[in-house]
């Protein structure tokens, strides 16, 4: 199966480990991700802030490129997913803005592309049963706390492909890899997102709650599908170990890193060394990474 792929800026820079694990894991499952040629930034959260048509031109251009290549567009970055999905919805439902956009970017696009998150592709196109059948290295004995980025769930009517209050796709995927998803209360708690820029103490507190809740539930690792959450939850732990007495750090991995490892791919390709909380000791202890890897 071939699906068009929009990596987005984050996965092209800071999230290379995410990007590579997405491409290679999906390839191992028979999904060939075809990167869009000459793509531009989706605009991150800005295009949807104001009611201006021109701001949608960036994401619209991406959608137009995708329409030339196929009927589906895969994204792994949750923000790109949110922006593209919602822009596409505007194009589908709002005739006036659709016409002005098409005029401006010189296209004739009606919103026919289906924007899909990688997790959604794994669930609906590949199927978790099929994933399970391809597991080479079971993650058995690994207790994971699945953390869902809000960008794939909110606003629910526009973007959610899972229960926005109690999502479970990631838990099901992890279970199909042999891991043990813990029941916990932090799944959809906000990680603080852009508060990092304005109110860093508050953002740190929010990450603290999430990580300690996962720890109390018995998790050994946090798994997420969102690059910004990954960054927040991982990065704050550097401060938390100093500021909060008794704080126990937890590695924060992208779900596709664990997926790739379970499918028997080489873990050293996914920038594990770039994480602030080193996940390697845990992976070694679980027999998922060679002892020799530095």
């Amino acid at each position, binding site marked *: 199966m071939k699906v068009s792929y929009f990596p987005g800026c984050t996965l092209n820079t800071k999230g290379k480990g995410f990007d590579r694990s997405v491409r290679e894991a999906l390839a191992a499952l028979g999904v060939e991700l075809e990167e869009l040629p000459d793509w531009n930034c989706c605009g991150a959260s800005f295009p949807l802030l104001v009611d201006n048509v021109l701001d949608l031109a960036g994401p619209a251009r991406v959608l137009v490129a995708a329409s030339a290549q196929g009927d589906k567009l895969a994204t792994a970055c949750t923000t790109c997913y949110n922006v593209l999905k919602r822009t596409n919805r505007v194009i589908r439902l709002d005739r006036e803005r659709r016409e002005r956009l098409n005029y401006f970017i010189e296209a004739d696009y009606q919103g026919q592309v289906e924007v899909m998150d990688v997790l959604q592709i794994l669930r609906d196109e590949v199927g978790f049963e099929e994933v399970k059948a391809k597991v080479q290295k079971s993650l058995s004995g690994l207790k994971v706390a699945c953390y869902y980025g809000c960008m794939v769930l909110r606003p*629910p009517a526009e973007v959610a492909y899972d*229960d*926005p*209050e*109690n*999502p479970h796709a990631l838990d099901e995927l992890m279970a199909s890899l042999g891991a043990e998803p813990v*029941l*916990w*209360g*932090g799944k959809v*708690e906000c990680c603080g997102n852009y508060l990092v820029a304005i109110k860093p103490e508050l953002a740190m507190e929010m990450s603290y709650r999430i990580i300690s*809740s996962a720890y*109390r*539930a018995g998790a050994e690792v946090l798994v997420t599908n969102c690059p910004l959450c990954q960054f927040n939850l991982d990065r704050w732990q550097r401060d938390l170990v100093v500021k909060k007495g008794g704080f126990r750090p937890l590695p924060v991995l992208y779900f596709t890193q664990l997926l790739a490892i379970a499918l028997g791919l080489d873990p050293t390709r996914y920038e594990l060394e770039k994480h602030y909380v080193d996940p390697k000791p845990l992976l070694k202890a679980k027999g998922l990474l060679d002892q020799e890897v530095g």
Partner: protein
Amino acid sequence: MVIGAGIAGIQAALDIANAGYEVVVVERLPSIGGHMLQLSETFPTLDCSQCILTPRTVEVGRHEKIKLYTYSEVESLEGEVGNFRVRIRRYPSYVNWDICTGCGVCQEKCPKRVISTDFERGIGKRKAIYTLSPQAVPNKPVIDPENCLYFTQGKCRVCERFCPVGAIDYNQKERIFEEEVGAVIVATGYELLPLTELGEYGAGTIPDVIDSLAFERLLSASGPTAGKILRPSDGKEPKVVVFVQCAGSRDPERHMPYCSKICCMYTAKHAMLYRHRVHDGQAIIFYIDIRSAGKGYEEFIHRAVTEDRVLYIRGKVARLYQEDGKVVVRGVDTLSGRQVEIAADLVVLAVAMVPRPETRALAEKLGLRLDEHGFLEEEDRNFAPLESGRPGIFLAGAGTGPKDIPETVSQASGAAGKVLSLFSQWG
């Protein structure tokens, strides 16, 4: 004909029968009583629900003018007012009710225990051959073929061996009966929003988060715990119980936009009865606002606060999750403007009253309209609230929307009056 034998159907049937007319009652379940039979005590009087209902169910069962079809549904309806022809489908009970004496030996001996998800709301058990309650009317059992060892594995037949009158009949088939009736009252009642719909409250995966009807079963002297308040996870007595009002009601974005009307009252009742049983227990209620319009209702709420020291917190609960054997309740107290977090032993959700999904099919068969939520729609909300829009078919009870027992009973008597006035015109 009365369809549905909850308190609405019972009241209507008795009113008409006592006026001297014949009534055919069709009830889907094996016995009559509806939701009221599951309740512990009723607000605002705190009468024992079963005690005030049982004389009425018994009267229906014995009344010479009432023909009772339980475990049955309406298959089709033809004709018009004064002359309806109905076909009634009766499900096989696998017990010959004509000779069964209701001795209960079969239930006692049956080796197969099943969790009763319907009547006991998942808290209690029943056998594969069962009646809904010990006071069931009719007090005759049915075999549930999905769990019976004979139907699933071809062996057992214990009930057959022990039945003193040879009433067990594994070969019983579905039967169709035909009746002719002059008018119809539809009293099919309501359902509760399933916990699985409430993701923010654990979607039914947290054992100590239960719905209000399950709490009624815990409070009931005839319930699975004999009236003791014991939480499902470990059977311990909960010392901190949080009640969440408007769970799935008044939430146009995610759930039901309407107010379920009765839950402010029954939640006050729950908290009160809990405090009567567990003297050192804390009862905490989260509410948006208290809707207690009714005779003696506001006074009832007042009593919960002043006499029973129930703590009311004004605000919504955002999330429930399990941690260290407790259910963590995260919410907001909008009066102080603070977030609150409570470690509760048990959480009771006052879930929305919703239409029964099966009502859709029934409405189609009878040619009735439904409202935007799936409740039966009245001919006119102001002036014809008991008429269905189809002449000769009337509506009563919670099938048209949330109602408490007093309102349900008034409607039922009203609908019965409508039918009787029709009959009196025909002479």
